[in-house]
């Protein structure tokens, strides 16, 4: 760059000669120079601004285009960043306590029709009706030739059926993948598992949702992909459950009962090892809910959880145990059992008259209504109510089934002294067999509350104390005496020291007018082995009768007890319990001389 001097000698000399001020020339040149500098700086700044503007324009253009592309394209799963196992997206399996499968999934296909693509609707309709007997060819043809564009034909088809549909060869008949919930054991544990069906359905997939039982109660867990296919472990033992169902089914037929339920529970952990309700159903093919009539006649009805019945004399142990806990009586206190007991215009009778007085143990062993009622009067209304509440008998159980809330006990509308008396021997308060199992467990396990659970536990529940250990021990001894010398003599199983209490309750009439004379609920609440209680088994038969010794018998001692004894005989070895028979002389060193 040629730099113009501020004071060019030629112009200075000329200016001096003309008598002008040469400084004006310098000022003028300085001004011109500054203008030049300013212009070039502005040019450069404008250029930079232009470049910056262009850059921003390009950046915004790129961002805008990218956003447009993202918004208008189909979303895609990130492939690299996906953590964990991307494959297991199915509903989780349900397994028993030993890991045997109770519910799993199977890949099947659904069949649908894209009607505009169909080539020969008539042939397709006839072909489909030949493959699926429940479809009607004429109706299919009407659908295929009508206004519709899309038609679901079958939700699930087997591979053989799929091949047969392929053989029809119509391009409008299409298949979508479907996950099918499979219960490989059929009706075993049907009421616990419940069942599953389809929720939202699309062509490419369908949602499997639980409709009852644990499938519904744990729906969120089973569908959570974060579990990575971890199965739901139940406390049920499949073998024990199947054996219990078998025995109970046989017992129900033998006793010509219309229904039966059993609950086998671990007294320390509260785990339900088996829970049976008969009649049952196949969860793979769940029957329809009854639209009219009594829901309790439906096979879907879970008698062990939803069936609230007056469970009769099985409740007597609660009154006696509480009275001993409160120090009102002890096991040998003599109780006045003269009858009938009069309260207002009501009279309390009982089955046999055993004389003027019985000891507290005898009241349980002989099942004296009057004796128990007298003990209940000693306890009083509020204390009885509080105790039954602390055992969980006055609220629905917390068991993890979607039906649990519908098994809420029926309480007397007005808990009077008469209610106290009748409830002490199991009338006037209706509970489910599961309630009874939990309450018996709490009584016999040393006196701490257990809540029934269907999930596998690895440690005992340390619930709040409801009875002292001594009273729990006394109660178990009383229950043992009922079997050895009382109403449950058929309940003896050699080697397992069964203890228990029978209960026979007349069924209330549906229209509310008193009780039936010839319909009973027979219950046996048992605990074994009595020297170290581990399990509680409740067996309930609905309307049993058995002809024995020339007459029709309905009491629990003749009906529920033999069934329960057979069940213990079958189930206890499966639980790994060794019968405690008198052991042979121990092998060892014998002194021959002393």
């Amino acid at each position, binding site marked *: 760059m040629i730099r113009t001097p501020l004071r060019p000698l030629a112009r200075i000399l000329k200016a001096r000669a003309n008598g002008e001020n040469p400084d004006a020339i310098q000022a003028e040149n300085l001004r011109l120079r500054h203008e030049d500098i300013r212009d070039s700086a502005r040019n450069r700044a404008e250029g930079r601004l232009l470049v910056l503007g262009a850059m921003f324009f390009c950046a915004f253009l790129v961002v805008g285009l990218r956003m447009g592309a993202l918004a208008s394209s189909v979303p895609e799963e990130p492939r690299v960043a996906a953590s964990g196992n991307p494959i297991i997206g199915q509903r989780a399996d349900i397994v028993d306590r030993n890991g045997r499968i109770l519910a799993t999934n*199977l890949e099947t296909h659904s069949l649908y029709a894209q009607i505009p693509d169909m080539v020969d609707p008539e042939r397709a309709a006839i072909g489909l009706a030949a493959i699926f007997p429940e479809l009607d060819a004429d109706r299919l043809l009407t659908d295929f030739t009508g206004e519709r564009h899309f038609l679901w034909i079958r939700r699930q088809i087997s591979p053989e059926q799929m091949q047969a549909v392929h053989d029809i060869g119509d391009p409008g008949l299409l298949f979508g993948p479907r996950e099918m919930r499979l219960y490989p054991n059929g009706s075993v544990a049907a009421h616990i598992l419940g069942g599953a069906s389809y929720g939202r359905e699309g062509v490419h997939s369908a949602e499997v949702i639980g409709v009852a039982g644990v499938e519904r109660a744990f729906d969120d867990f089973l569908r959570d992909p974060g579990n990575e296919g971890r199965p739901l472990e139940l406390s049920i033992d499949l073998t024990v459950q199947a054996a219990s169902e078998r025995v109970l089914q046989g017992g129900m037929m033998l006793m010509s009962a219309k229904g039966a339920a059993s609950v086998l529970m671990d007294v320390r952990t509260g785990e339900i090892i088996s829970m049976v309700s008969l009649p049952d159903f196949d969860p793979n093919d769940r029957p329809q809910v009854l639209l009219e009539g009594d829901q309790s006649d439906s096979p879907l009805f879970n008698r062990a959880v939803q069936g609230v019945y007056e469970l009769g004399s099985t409740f007597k142990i609660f009154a006696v145990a509480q009275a001993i806990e409160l120090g009102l009586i002890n096991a040998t206190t003599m109780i006045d059992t003269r009858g009938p007991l009069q309260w207002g215009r009501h009279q309390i009778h009982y089955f046999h008259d055993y004389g003027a007085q019985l000891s507290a143990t005898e009241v349980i062993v002989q099942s004296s209504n009057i004796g128990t009622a007298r003990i209940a009067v000693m306890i009083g209304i509020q204390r009885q109510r509080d105790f039954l509440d602390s055992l969980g008998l006055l609220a629905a159980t917390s068991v993890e089934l979607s039906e649990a809330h519908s098994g809420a006990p029926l309480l007397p509308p007005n808990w009077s002294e008469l209610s106290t008396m009748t409830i002490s021997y199991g009338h006037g308060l209706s509970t489910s067999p599961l309630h009874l199992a939990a309450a018996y467990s709490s009584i016999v396990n040393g006196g701490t509350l257990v809540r029934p659970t269907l999930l596998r536990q690895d440690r005992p529940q340390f619930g709040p104390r409801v009875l002292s250990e001594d009273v729990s021990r006394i109660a178990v001894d009383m229950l043992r005496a009922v079997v050895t010398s009382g109403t449950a003599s058929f309940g003896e199983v050699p080697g397992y020291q069964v203890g228990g209490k029978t209960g026979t309750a007349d069924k209330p009439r549906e229209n509310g007018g008193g009780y039936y004379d010839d319909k009973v609920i027979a219950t046996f609440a048992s605990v074994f082995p009595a020297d170290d209680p581990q399990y509680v088994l409740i067996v309930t038969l609905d309307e049993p009768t058995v002809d024995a010794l020339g007459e029709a018998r309905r009491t629990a001692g003749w009906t529920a007890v033999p069934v329960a004894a057979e069940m213990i*005989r079958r189930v206890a070895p499966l639980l790994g319990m060794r019968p405690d028979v008198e*052991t042979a002389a121990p092998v060892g060193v014998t002194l021959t001389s002393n």
Partner: protein
Amino acid sequence: MRGFLFVFSILGVMGLAFWAYQENYRTQQSLGEVRQLHSNIGAAHQRLNVLKAEWAYLNRPDRLRDLAELNFDRLGLLPLMPDAFGRIDQVEYPVLPLGPILGSIEVSSDNAPQEEDL
């Protein structure tokens, strides 16, 4: 010097571009392999699931009970009952066969005719 740096950096950029190009294709190939493996694992899982379901179905208690009853003559299987428990000293251990006699002592009368043979 400047020229050298210039050439050197251009060569560097070209080298890095070549490396990035290769890495890109290697990554894409790996992704493809992973996808393939995932779909293989998925298919294997599905097969495994079907096998598990079939195993559970074949071992369902009803069927096993029926099979035990059908084959009672051959197998003699009974439900597990309390009398199935025994004590350890009731178990009969098989008598172990005697081992070969090692280091036996030769006696001069070993091959001598026995009295009966005489």
